[in-house]
């Protein structure tokens, strides 16, 4: 619409300003409405947050109550233990003060004892020095005596060694001489044993021949006696012949026994003879050695 002529420009300007202000108010109201809606939305969010926070705070309060109660119990227990520790600490302090007193008395005693020990030590040192000087003198005298004795013993040992050396040389000469004699003696012993063995063998052979002859003779006589006994057992033989044969058999038995005793005596004599010869040889050998 064009500017109306029925209204003055001042009024039109007034209407324009009022229209402009109305538009401004409209925009402001729209803005306020948006802001109020935003506020309402935020208010609802805040309400929900408040409810959530109230619920959480209630839960937290319960948890805090339980935690505080447990913590209080722990603190009470710890306080009791700390009280016990303080009591022990008091006893420790008492013990410490008593120990300090004891330490002071001990230090006094220690000083007295150290003084006594020092005095004893000086006395002992003096005595020890005296005894050491005495013993050193004694030891020096003993050492000089020992050295003199060692010198005399050395001289004796040298003399003994010289004598031993000479006796060793003599003994070695005798051993050499004896070695030369041993071979000769061994030859003589061997020859003697050989001769004795031949003699014994000869005697044994002779004895064996004699015994064999006697044995054959006895056997022949025994066969003759048996034949005569058989003949006497016949009906035509007399009792006188039997008696004579019996006496002959007894005589033969006596001869056999005497021969056996002679043989055993001969054996004993040869053995004794051999032993005597061996003893002679042993004596010769031992005399030589």
């Amino acid at each position: 619409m064009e500017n109306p002529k029925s209204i003055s420009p001042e009024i039109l300007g007034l209407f324009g300003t009022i229209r402009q202000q109305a538009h401004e108010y409209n925009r402001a109201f729209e803005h306020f409405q948006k802001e109020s809606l935003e506020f309402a939305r935020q208010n609802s969010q805040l309400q929900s947050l408040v409810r959530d926070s109230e619920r959480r705070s209630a839960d937290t309060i319960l948890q805090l109550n339980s935690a505080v109660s447990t913590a209080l119990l722990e603190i009470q227990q710890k306080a009791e233990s700390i009280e016990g520790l303080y009591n022990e600490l008091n006893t420790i302090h008492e013990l410490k003060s008593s120990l300090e007193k004891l330490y002071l008395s001990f230090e006094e005693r220690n000083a007295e004892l150290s003084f006594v020990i020092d005095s004893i030590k000086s006395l002992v040192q003096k005595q020890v020095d005296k005894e050491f000087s005495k013993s050193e003198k004694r030891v020096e005298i003993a050492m000089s005596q020992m050295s003199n004795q060692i010198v005399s013993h050395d001289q004796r040992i040298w003399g003994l060694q010289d004598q031993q050396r000479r006796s060793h040389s003599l003994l070695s000469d005798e051993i050499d001489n004896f070695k030369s004699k041993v071979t000769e003696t061994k030859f003589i012993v061997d020859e003697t044993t050989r001769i004795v063995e031949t003699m014994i063998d000869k005697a044994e052979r002779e004895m064996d021949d004699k015994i064999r002859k006697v044995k054959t003779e006895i056997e022949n006589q025994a066969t003759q006696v048996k034949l005569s006994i058989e003949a006497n057992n016949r009906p035509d033989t007399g009792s006188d012949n039997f008696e004579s044969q019996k006496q002959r058999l007894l005589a033969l038995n006596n001869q056999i026994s005497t021969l056996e005793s002679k043989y055993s005596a001969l054996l004993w004599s040869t053995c004794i003879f051999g032993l005597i010869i061996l003893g002679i040889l042993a004596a010769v050998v031992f005399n030589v050695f």
Partner: protein
Amino acid sequence: METESEDIHVNHRSFTKAAIQGLAPRTFYQELAQENSLYGFLQTYLAQTFENDEKFRNEMMNVLLEHSPGVIPEFETELLQDLCESLSYFLEYTKPWKTQNQ
């Protein structure tokens, strides 16, 4: 958005009305307004209707605005009274906010 669409609709309606009015014959009230005697006529013969019938009042106001050749102080007074009523309603409406702000 809503206000922009309303403005477009109002403009379209006024253009249509203007086109129709341009084609339609002039009314008795328009001729009175061109002769600068419409307000006096309304006050003399149709004062009750002009005061109580809002549709008629608005229609007469439009005729006065569009067809009067000069300034009509009484019409301005009427308009300023309407403005005062609207502003007083507005002030009354926004009073709680002002008191809250204070």
